[in-house]
């Protein structure tokens, strides 16, 4: 208790000491889409209003090709930013182990974060040898089937309520010249197998494969169903009908030129900005309409250790930002715009839209570990390569796919 009091005093001292003059704090992230930028602006607003410091925004488009090399090399090169966003998961585990990240334990000690984090598993990737090195700021889930109200109006059918009904509607959609499944080229494919796995295969299968890395689970009949669903999907999509970005798929859904899409909940942010209303213009089905649990991932903030001799005011600003990011006000404002779920249980979400409310209900059942959490970036990259190849090349049979996936899982770390 005594320790707690000291820490609390220190924390207040941080907040008090910097009001004298403002400093710049550089924050890197790859939130550059319209919805994402609007969301990150909410963080910046709260930070600047409460501390008087300046949020220097360094956005870099493209997580893998644009931002990642820059963020990692800058941290390694000794020119770190004040804070950086990365995916919640194991992408930065080595940076933490190498001692390049600031330990946040003392900074948030008085906040009792254990009491309000939705799911303790979220913090797992941030913990290392008793320290706390990152703060998840939201929960994103891939597990959504988005359906276009306009498309189903055109063919005169009710909007499906689960995956099976959706698949059954494909012939009618194709007859009407509507794309059954809208898809953006590139990375959006990567999330789809995981969603099918959770929705069709169920929670047990996800745990066996992602957590236990059991190759036999990949060879099981349950996973075969998943692979077959993926096979069905690749047959109704073609590179020709793919659009450049996932936001374009959102537009297709609103226009009714595509009937459905599997994509993460951040699509909601773009649908919202494009003027779509959930329940009217589009429908969202968590876990493909079957699942009772969502696979959780999301974004976390890391605070790199700043070089010796850095102005104390900047270090204080880092600490302030860390506390603000998980504060109720910032959490609410940010997540409402981002379309993600807040990491706090104690905030009023009555303003949430229909989709987010569904997600909040499912959160009570706990989160399933997503690939980001349980698989190394290396394994994820291998799975991604395989999925991309399978999706584009129909000469790869379902059996080949299962076997190759099982081999990767067998060697996964």
């Amino acid at each position, binding site marked *: 208790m005594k320790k707690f009091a000291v820490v609390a005093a220190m924390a207040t001292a941080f907040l008090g000491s910097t009001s004298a003059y403002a400093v710049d704090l550089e924050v890197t992230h790859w939130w*550059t889409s*319209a919805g994402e930028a609007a969301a990150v602006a909410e963080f910046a607003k709260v930070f600047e209003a409460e501390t008087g410091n300046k949020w220097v925004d360094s*956005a*870099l488009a493209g997580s893998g090709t644009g931002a990642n090399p*820059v963020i990692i090399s800058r941290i390694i*090169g000794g020119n770190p930013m004040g804070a950086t966003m990365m995916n919640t998961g194991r992408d930065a585990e080595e940076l933490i182990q190498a001692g390049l990240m600031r330990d946040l334990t003392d900074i948030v000690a008085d906040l009792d974060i254990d009491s309000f984090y939705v799911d303790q598993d979220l913090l797992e990737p941030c913990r290392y040898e008793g320290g706390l090195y990152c703060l998840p700021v939201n929960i994103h889930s891939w597990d959504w089937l988005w359906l276009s109200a306009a498309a189903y109006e055109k063919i005169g059918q009710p909007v499906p309520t689960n995956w099976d009904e959706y698949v059954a509607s494909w012939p009618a959609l194709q007859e009407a010249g509507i794309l059954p499944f809208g898809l953006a080229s590139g990375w959006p494919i990567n999330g789809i197998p995981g969603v099918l796995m959770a929705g069709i295969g169920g929670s047990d299968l996800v745990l066996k494969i992602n957590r236990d890395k059991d190759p036999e689970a990949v060879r099981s009949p349950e996973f075969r169903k998943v692979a077959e669903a993926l096979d069905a999907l690749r047959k109704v999509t073609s590179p020709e009908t793919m659009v450049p970005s996932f*936001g374009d798929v959102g537009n297709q859904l609103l226009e009714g030129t595509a009937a459905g899409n599997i994509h993460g909940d951040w699509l909601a942010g773009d649908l919202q900005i494009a003027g779509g209303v959930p329940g009217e213009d589009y429908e969202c089905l968590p876990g493909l309409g079957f699942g009772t649990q969502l696979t959780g991932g999301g974004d976390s903030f890391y605070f790199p250790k700043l070089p010796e001799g850095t102005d104390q005011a900047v270090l204080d600003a880092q600490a302030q930002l860390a506390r603000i990011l998980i504060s109720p006000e910032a959490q609410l404002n940010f997540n409402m715009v981002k379309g993600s779920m807040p990491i706090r249980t104690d905030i009023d979400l009555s303003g949430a839209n229909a989709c987010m409310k569904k997600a909040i209900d499912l959160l009570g059942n706990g989160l399933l570990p997503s690939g980001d959490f349980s698989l190394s970036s290396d394994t994820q990259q291998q799975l991604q390569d395989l999925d991309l190849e399978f999706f584009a090349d129909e000469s790869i049979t379902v059996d080949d796919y299962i076997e190759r996936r099982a081999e990767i899982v067998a060697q996964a770390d």
Partner: protein
Amino acid sequence: MTMTASMTGSAPVSQANEPRGPRPKPFFTPKKIMIYSTLIFFSLYFLFPLYVMVATSFKTMPEIRFGSIFALPNQINFDSWVRAWSTACTGLTCNGLAPGFWNSVKITVPSTIVSIFIAAINGYALVNWRFKGSELFFAVLIFGSFIPYQVMLYPLVMITRELGIFGKLEAVILIHTIFGMPILTLLFRNYFASLPQELFKAARVDGAGFWRIFFEIMLPMSLPIFVVALILQITGIWNDFLFGAVFAGTHNQPMTVQLNNIVNSAQGTPEYNVNMAATVLTGLVPLIVYFVSGKLFVRGVAAGAVKG
């Protein structure tokens, strides 16, 4: 120079084959028509993307979505140019490309000067002051030009960190000097080798040293090759994305970084007109350099690259 003799056959002299004859000829010979139509065909291939970029940048979004890629804009609309230059957003900052433009200038000017100066000295030393192993160093240098940049990123971050310049302009200047060195050195070496060696020897006899000969004899004769080097470096450095973003530091992010952000952001509705305007704006500096220096550039290439 003697190979023509061996090619000499007993074929009769043919009047039809007189390509380089200085005499004026009627313009519309079948041969001319073929030459010009081929050249025009290729010119269309080269010009079409430029047309698409410029035309699209003047269009409005509905025009783009519903119109043809070949169509001229209905009216000249500068909105997207203004937006690309001054208000397009990168995350939270909505200052367009303008700040990046000045950062790119800050990076390009010193990097170009330093890299060319060093490469010129290399070429000069390789030709006129050979030392043991100098050709070997040169061979490795050429080999180095084949190594993908990205492979070197990690060790270079470590090197610049140890030198204490990571994240500063010095680092990016160093990196551009290193990666410009192989091809520039090749050009300068070839160029200096093509200069009459008598001048150099005469200067040596007069007792002039390494630097004096370089500054007083070699440099004044090297304008054409300097123009080639300038063009290669200005375009190369201006167009660089990776090194600028990684090494130059937060306050010096080049224009290409903002271009990348503008065009690669997964915006709900991609604004192709703004993208294209931004693209043309970013390419403008190297383009102007080319258009202005066309003749000199060709002369320089001719002088530098021909002699091997």
